[in-house]
């Protein structure tokens, strides 16, 4: 590395690809110590395990690009999951139940957006409040116990099915959503408005960007993404748990930050988030393959996140 001469542009690109390089390094390291790691089914397994976090993290990326935060994502996931399960149990057609759960998640996000944009409440506080409220509602609706066994082929396929008998549907879903988000952020007026609002809300407003509306949409999308993650989780477990998804918002935030998106808003990209989610997934998988105790796994995961962010900081100086 020392001999490499870096032009500023080269350096910026390299920096941007930092998380990707870290992912490759860890993957290569793991494949050396544990030959099982590189097997196709294990890699697909890692991606499937990462998919729920990635789906939430995609929505979270938009929120963080705005300079906000969504702490309610895990609770949105749980309540949507309980709503879908209740509907399925009452005999609602699975497609309708699934869509209803996703719409409900969107509405929960919309409430966040309204509190933040119209009520002028700091996103941290607003979503801390709805996190607790929605978790409570999930417990109320389910009476505190899991709702299980849906007897729906369609529904169990969403989390457990495969495309071409090889690629898990959640992985396909993750990649499709990734593609959509990439397009929206890169190519649309809305995406540009997200960056502008997060970069400088005052300038954006004075340039005619409807900042309030951008916020409403972004938090709604975050709710929708949490609900979709809820669909995948519920389907895989064949059960809706009112306590599901606790702390998932933090994993999602970790994935976004690992991917290089700035918590102060305005800077970041969706590819980084995908890599960040996979990085966390690979780490989980690798530590399992290596038989590291779950207690130490937490210590190691946290340290890696801190290390990555510190290196990123150092580079930017």
């Amino acid at each position, binding site marked *: 590395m020392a001999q490499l001469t870096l032009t500023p542009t080269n350096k910026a690109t390299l920096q941007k690809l930092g998380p990707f390089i870290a992912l490759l390094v860890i993957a290569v390291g793991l494949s050396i110590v544990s030959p099982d790691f590189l097997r196709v089914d294990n890699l697909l397994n890692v991606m499937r395990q990462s998919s729920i976090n990635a789906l939430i993290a995609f929505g979270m990326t938009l929120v963080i690009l705005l300079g906000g935060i969504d702490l309610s994502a895990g609770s949105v996931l749980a309540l949507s999951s309980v709503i879908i399960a209740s509907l399925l149990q009452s005999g609602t057609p699975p497609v309708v139940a699934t869509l209803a759960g996703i719409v409900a998640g969107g509405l929960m996000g919309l409430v966040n957006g309204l509190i933040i944009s119209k009520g002028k409440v700091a996103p941290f506080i607003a979503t801390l409040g709805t996190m607790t409220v929605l978790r409570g509602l999930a417990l109320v609706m389910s009476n505190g116990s899991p709702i299980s066994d849906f007897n729906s082929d369609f529904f169990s396929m969403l989390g457990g099915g495969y495309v071409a008998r090889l690629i898990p549907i959640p992985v396909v879903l993750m990649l499709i959503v990734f593609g959509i988000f990439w397009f929206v952020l890169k*190519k*649309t*007026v*809305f995406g*540009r408005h997200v*960056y*502008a609002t997060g*970069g*400088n809300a*005052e*300038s*954006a*407003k*004075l*340039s*005619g*960007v*409807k900042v309030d509306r951008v916020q409403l949409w972004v938090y709604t999308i975050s709710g929708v993404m949490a609900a979709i993650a809820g669909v995948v989780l519920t389907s895989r477990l064949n059960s809706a748990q009112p306590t599901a998804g606790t702390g998932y918002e933090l994993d999602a935030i970790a994935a976004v930050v690992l991917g290089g998106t700035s918590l102060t808003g*305005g*800077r970041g990209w969706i590819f980084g988030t995908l890599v960040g989610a996979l990085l966390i997934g690979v780490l989980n998988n690798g530590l399992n393959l290596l038989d590291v105790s779950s207690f130490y796994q937490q210590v190691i995961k946290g340290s890696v996140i801190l290390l990555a962010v510190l290196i990123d900081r150092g580079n930017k100086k």
Partner: protein
Amino acid sequence: MQVTMRGIGKAFGPVRVLDAVDFNIGAGEIHALMGENGAGKSTLMKILSGVYQADAGNILIDGKTAQIRDTVDAERAGIAIIHQELNLIPQLSVMENMFLGREPSRFGVVDSAAMRRQSRHWLDMVGAQRIDPQMEAGRLSIGQQQLVEIAKALSLDARVLVMDEPTAALTHREIETLFEIMLGLKARGVALVYVSHRMEEIFRICDRISVLRDGTFVGERVISQTGFDEIVRLMVGRELGERFPKRTNAPGDVRFQVAGLADDGNISGISFDVRAGEVLGIAGLMGAGRSEILRTLFGVNRKTAGAVSLDGLPLDICDASGAIGAGIGFVTEDRKNQGLVLGMSVRENATLVHLDTYARFGVVNDAAERAAVEQLIKQLRIRTRDAELDVKSLSGGNQQKVVFAKWLAAPPRVLLLDEPTRGVDVGGKAEIYTIINQLASQGVAIVMVSSELPEVLGMSDRILVMHQGRQNGIFPAAGATQEMIMNAATGGKTAAAPVAP
């Protein structure tokens, strides 16, 4: 105490702000530092007071080289600065502000009685008997806050006191008080550096004057041996008359009419009209409500009364996007916080307002956008290596041109300009004036707020003068003088300050 700055140089990134500047001041002297906006006055004073570090040159105090690495060093050397933006913490009391970081204490407990006694002493010294040390600083007027800052500087035993445009926000009476205090300090052997644009004031109270232009030192004069004309020549490097390119078009029909405009208490009773191709200047002191007129017209501040019409049709604007839809553009005062998104590229900033023009179904057509941006860069002569560079890497003048570009992608019918050349160097200014003239000749109605009187006089067809939230006359620019405008801006009741020959 004698302070000498020698060969001072300073650059911010690619922008060279100071180049081999000399400056010296001695005890019992009031020394004016003049120069146009962006000439480097504030930077030079920030180096003297340890806020910035010089890249080149050195500072001598009484003939010995002094190391001023930070504000603490400067304080120890007896150098204090009162910044243009006052630095008091509004929630703390006057005395807590004065003794911030050096509170008199006994066994770690703040000795409030001592603090009160000492602050009383220094406040009396600057003639601020009416200020209670226990009052919240935020409740004081700007003039009173300035007195508190001066008292604080004295309590630090400052031997050199730098005042950066202290009178910009003061009323006439407050200015008189300030001058008395300055003369008192001078008599006690304090050296005062007075940074200001106000020629009359400088000729009234200063002893010597140093002039900067484009970051270089152009000369020092004894006040009694020079005059307005020479100083202006030193400042701009040429005759005043050439600074503002002539406009040849004749204004057309009335395009923009405002009658009885008022907001939530900052402005009221504002009425004017602007013709197509005309530039209406708005002058007034800081806080007189100039920017508020523009913000209210643009729908950012709430309008509480008044009627606005454009080309004869009444307008009801309640937010920025409504104003933009009606064909109004707004080049804001503070380009870093209100005009640009600094983390975005030149291209992304330039197309932020009219991005829809290059989009179908919400999807941006990259090629069309890039072509439009290239066109704007050429038209406005924005100097950037690449439209993809971050806008923050550009110089102030070029950043300001990007702000103009935002509004020119689809030509507006009315363009509101708030301090369009603030922080722009002389060359950049001339280019911006040319842009303004081009827009006027295309029939845009322009309303321009500016604190620089020569700019208002040189660029406007007519000048509306604000005083304390109300308009105090509209003058045709031909035949108007700085004195007339200042007189109206200060309420029109007080005579202009006496002028040295």
